[in-house]
Structures are given as structure tokens and as C-alpha cells.
């Protein structure tokens, strides 16, 4: 009989099979190193993995279904909950897809602000990645350092839009607000210090024996495998494919800024780590250039398209027709033309795509969210066999998966 207040060993997670000595280990869904609700069923021969079954869906909220029942502007805050580490990049992906569907041109100042937000989000995401991965490997110091810098960036975004994690800082047709006065000074202050900070992390990790043992030649993804599994972002570039959507299919102002796309042909955890560090430096480079572009732009923040986008607040409050338009757009929603569009953007995690099929109604007929992490989780099926238990943690770490995005 079960007794109260008495702890008993309870082997729920392990099944022993005496016949072929194979053990099935259940990793997650509540494992701190699984970066969310990932459940891995691992078939083991002693410490070595012979088969891996990633099991997802623990955070499934049916965003695609929700999108079919929401007007376009209403869906914007929901996109925040996909990759909640860098939510502005999701907002942007969705806004861009709808803008392409409508055929809108966004004012230049809005573009500059969007670029700033996107790159700040990339830095936030990479810092978060570094912090958590280093923590998983056991480097607690790096976690504290990286979170300190991320905190600064979160404060910056908070100064802009009032939110720290789920920003909803981008609207279809532009951005809702202009930058606050102190934004540029704070940003530059941060950027001036960032190279030192990155050097600190690298001093701690680059030649660290434990880090190298856990990272070098672990989780090697070949070029064919990366392409076949639909990898994107750093996962793809670390495997020898030079492909960055910002560079190859530039959107926003990425064709006006100078930056390099670091890549590597090693394909292992260490290569991915080096790419994340290099990308942070590139982001800083982009941010400096974009910050200089801000001066001299005209103050419009939203595109002028009365059929789809509400007029500026001043006009709504003073002009009758603008108020009527606004009322219709808020209560009924905009009605994009009939057609379909697939727009990819380079989010910090990889290729974030929005497929929208519009039938001319205020609700999208079908919206498909192409989240990079989905396939970066799927690849674990082929990547993990042959590795050992401790490698699982470091491989999950460098795939940089976020479960808000995997399950949607």
C-alpha cells in the first residue's frame, strides 16, 4: 500500500529489456535541457543511441487554425508566441507576407525601425542561445554574462514598445511608434561595448577543454543531410551552404547595408557555435549602419493605403472619412486581394516563412507557418543515432530550437 509522505524510487522513465540489452530512455518532455517541451524516445545500447524518436506537440496551440478565425491585424500578437525569444522577427515575417499580398510599400523610417528591431531581436536570440547552451554544457558564468547583455537589449525594446518578450512591435504597413529619444544613444552605448562582451564569452569558451570535447566533431550534419531536412539559418551555413535570405533575397534595407555571411563546412556543434558568435558581430555592424540611416528620414511610419491601413491618429481624430475607414478596418478587418503568397525571412533561427492563401475575405483562408525549428527538431531522428547521452544535450543546444515555433 502506498504510504503518505514516503518517497519511493519510481522507474517510470526507464524500461529494461533483458533479451537484447536495449534500453529505452525517455528524455523529456520536462527536461531542463530539452529547451521546451521536447520528448525524445531514445533506444540505447549502453550509453550509445541506436534510434531516436523526437515527439512533439506538447505546446500545440493551433495557431494556423486560430489564424483562419482572426482578422489579419488580430493575428499579429499571436505570432509573438511562436519564437518567443525573438518575437519581432515573427511579427515582421507576418507583416511582410501580408504587405506583399496587398502590394504595399512601407515608408523608409518604418523600414529603418524594423531593421533595428530585427537585428536587436537577432542579438537577443543569439545571446539567449549562447546562455542556455553554455548552461546546459555546464558553463554557468557565460549564462550570467550573456543574460546581462540580453537584459540590456530587452530594456531597449521595452523603451520602444513597452513589452520585453512578446513585442507585437510591428504592424502591417509599418510600425506603430517612432523611436524614443534615448533609443539611439542607448543602442550605440550597447554596441560599443558588445565586442568586448563577445570577446569575454569567447575567452571563456573557445579553448575551454570541456567545451571543445562537448562541441568538436559532435553532431556533424553533412551538406546533403542539411538540404534534405530543410535546414536553414545557422544549421545550414555551418554545413557548408552559403545561404542567407537577407543576402540572397534581400528584403527591407538589407541590400543597402554591408555585412558578411559567415559560414563553415565542418557541420559540427563547434562550427555552429562559431557562426552564432560571428553573426552577433555582423548584427552589430548592421545596427551601426542602420542607426545612421535613421537621421534624415521623413516621419511617416505607416503606409498610405486607406483601403487596408488605418490613417494616422491625427487624421482619425480630425477627419470624418478617416474615422469611418478606421472603424471599418477595426471591426471588419482589411480584405486583401484573392491570391496566395509565400514569403520567407531570415529569422534568428532560420527561414521563417508565411504562406497565406486569401480568398478576398477578412480572414485568411489558409495560413501556413513555416517555422525553421520544426525541421531542426526533425533532423534529430537522423542526427542522434551513434551519439552518446551527453551529446544529446549539446546537439539540442546547438540546433537552437524553440518549442513555441515547433508546435505552433
Amino acid at each position, binding site marked *: 500500500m502506498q504510504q503518505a509522505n514516503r518517497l519511493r524510487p519510481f522507474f517510470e522513465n526507464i524500461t529494461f529489456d533483458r533479451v537484447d540489452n536495449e534500453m529505452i530512455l525517455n528524455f523529456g518532455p520536462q527536461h531542463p535541457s530539452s529547451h521546451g517541451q521536447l520528448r525524445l524516445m531514445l533506444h540505447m545500447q549502453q550509453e550509445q543511441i541506436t534510434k531516436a524518436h523526437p515527439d512533439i506537440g506538447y505546446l500545440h496551440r493551433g495557431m494556423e487554425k486560430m489564424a483562419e478565425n482572426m482578422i489579419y491585424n488580430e493575428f499579429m500578437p499571436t505570432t509573438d508566441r511562436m519564437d518567443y525569444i525573438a518575437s519581432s522577427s515573427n511579427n515582421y515575417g507576418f507583416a511582410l507576407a501580408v504587405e506583399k499580398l496587398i502590394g504595399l510599400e512601407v515608408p523608409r523610417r518604418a523600414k529603418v525601425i524594423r531593421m533595428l528591431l530585427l537585428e536587436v531581436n537577432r542579438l537577443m536570440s543569439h545571446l539567449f542561445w549562447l546562455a542556455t547552451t553554455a548552461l546546459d554544457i555546464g558553463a554557468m558564468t557565460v549564462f550570467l554574462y550573456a543574460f546581462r547583455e540580453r537584459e540590456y537589449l530587452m530594456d531597449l525594446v521595452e523603451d520602444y514598445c513597452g513589452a520585453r518578450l512578446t513585442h507585437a512591435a510591428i504592424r502591417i504597413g509599418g510600425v506603430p511608434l517612432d523611436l524614443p529619444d534615448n533609443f539611439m544613444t542607448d543602442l550605440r*552605448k550597447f554596441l560599443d561595448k558588445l565586442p568586448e562582451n563577445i570577446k569575454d564569452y569567447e575567452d571563456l569558451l573557445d579553448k575551454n577543454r570541456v567545451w571543445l570535447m562537448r562541441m568538436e566533431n559532435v553532431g556533424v550534419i553533412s551538406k546533403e543531410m542539411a538540404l*534534405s531536412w*530543410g535546414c536553414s539559418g545557422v544549421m545550414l551555413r555551418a554545413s557548408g551552404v552559403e545561404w542567407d535570405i537577407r543576402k540572397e533575397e534581400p528584403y527591407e534595407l538589407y541590400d543597402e547595408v554591408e555585412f558578411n555571411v559567415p559560414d563553415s563546412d565542418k557541420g559540427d556543434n563547434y562550427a555552429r557555435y562559431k557562426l552564432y558568435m560571428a553573426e552577433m558581430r555582423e548584427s552589430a555592424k548592421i545596427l551601426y549602419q542602420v542607426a545612421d540611416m535613421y537621421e534624415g528620414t521623413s516621419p511617416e511610419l505607416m503606409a498610405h493605403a486607406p483601403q487596408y491601413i488605418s490613417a494616422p491618429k491625427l487624421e482619425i481624430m480630425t477627419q470624418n472619412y478617416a474615422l469611418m475607414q478606421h472603424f471599418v478596418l477595426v471591426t471588419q478587418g482589411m480584405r486583401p486581394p484573392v*491570391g496566395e503568397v*509565400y514569403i520567407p525571412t531570415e529569422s534568428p533561427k532560420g*527561414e521563417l*516563412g508565411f504562406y497565406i492563401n486569401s480568398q478576398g475575405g477578412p480572414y485568411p483562408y*489558409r495560413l501556413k507557418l*513555416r517555422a525553421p525549428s520544426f525541421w531542426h527538431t526533425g533532423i534529430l531522428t537522423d542526427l542522434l543515432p551513434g551519439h552518446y547521452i551527453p551529446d544529446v544535450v549539446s546537439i539540442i543546444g546547438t540546433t537552437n530550437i524553440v518549442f513555441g515555433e515547433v508546435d505552433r
Partner: protein
Amino acid sequence: MRAYTPKDNVQKKSYYTDRFWVAPQVAKFDVSQDTVFTADLDAIKAKFDVLDAYIQVDQMVVVINANDNYAVLELLKNECEYTQLSEMSAIDWLATEGKFEIFYQMLSMAKRKRLRIKCKIDEKEAIQSVEKLFRCADWSEREMYDMFGVVVNNHPCMKRILMPEDWEGFPLRKTYPLQGDEFAAWYEVDKIFGKEAREIIGPENRDPARIDRYDTKRFSRLGHEVPFGTDISQGEPDTPLVYQEQEGVFMVDKFDAQKSVVISDRHR
């Protein structure tokens, strides 16, 4: 008279549409405008039937027969340098045409081009898996099956991926309501207590997050812990909270609100 609500599409509808409203179209361009796409389309046309082809928002859309899907993707991958399948899924047109539309979003990194292959299948029809060509289709096809019930032939593991394996119904179909159907509402109850418990629990109590304060089998209240299984419907005895730090927590002991400093610059 009760307003008519169509049963084949229960998604949200706009409550008002102007009588004279004509929805504009996203422009479709002829494929001949783009030389790269023309070459790709000719390669497909040489071997397969092409039902429709056009360029929309800088991407080519090619509509093919559903049973050609594997061969067309193989051709694109091996001969036209479309090395990546970015995305694939289905669209539910059951209400209007009784068909599913399946799209494959392809990417060629060498040509910097994206194209979309589309085909239509009937509700009960199955489609050939492209998992042999693109491993990522393994999960995409499972997701498509999970969400729409489109069965994929020759798939290595045709199981649900996001929803639980014993789920009934296909959530992204237009007939599936946003709030879920009856099965979804009672899923936890059926699974934990059995179907016969539906009446006992009742619709008002089926919330899985609900806590029964008289249930000492699973829950207890802080300060009122009692031995397992005790009947406390008549009230439970108090168990006073005792902290290890009898004199208070030592670190907070010396806190003096008067001497604390408010930092003006929160960044540093």
C-alpha cells in the same frame, strides 16, 4: 427564423459584406516573362501534364496532376537544381470542390528562385510520399495527415505528430470548429476517468485545471495538510506552518528601507 449556418465550413465569416464588393486579385503573370522559370516549366512540360502555370508575387506556381507529384519533384530536384523543399501542406477545399489542394514550396539556391507545385486530390484519395527525395517531408506529411487526414502512401511512419495519437478528427479541416468538437471537450475526462464519468463530472466541471478542495488524494492546501485519503468534507484540522528560520530569514533581517538607494539609470 434561425439564420442558416453552413455545416461544411464552420470557420468565422465576415458579418457584413457590401453587395457590390468585388474582391481584387493578386496579379498573375505569364511564365514567359522570366527566362529561368520558362526553362523549368519546359522541363516539366516535356514529361508531365501541366494544368496551369503562372507567376504570382515573384514565384512560379505550377499545377500538376496529383499522381505525378513524386516524379515532378524528382525532376526538379535532380535536373532543375531545386534542392530544398521549404514547406508543404494542404488546403481544405472540401466545402466548394470536395478536394484537398496540396502544395510543395521548392527552393533553388543556385538560381535563387522559389516555385510552388500544386495538385488536387479527392477527400478519400491518398498521395504519394516524397520522403525519399526530401527527408523533411517525413514530418511535413505527418503534420498534413494529422491536421487534414490526408493519407500519404509509402510513408515510413504515418502517425499523428502534433495531436495525441488517439485523437479523433482533423483540426485544420473547415468542418472542425475552432473551439473543438465534442470529443475534444471530453478528451481528458474520457481518458482519465472513462466515458461513464461524463455524466458524473458534468460539462461545468470538465475543466482539467479545476481543483477540488475536498480531494485529499491529489491536492492539499498549505497549512492544512492531512494524511492521505482523509475525509475532510467536515473541515480539516490546522497544521501550523513552521519555518526553519525561527528568527526570520537572516539575509533580509538587516534590510532598512530608509537606507536603500533608488538607481536612476536602470541600465547600469
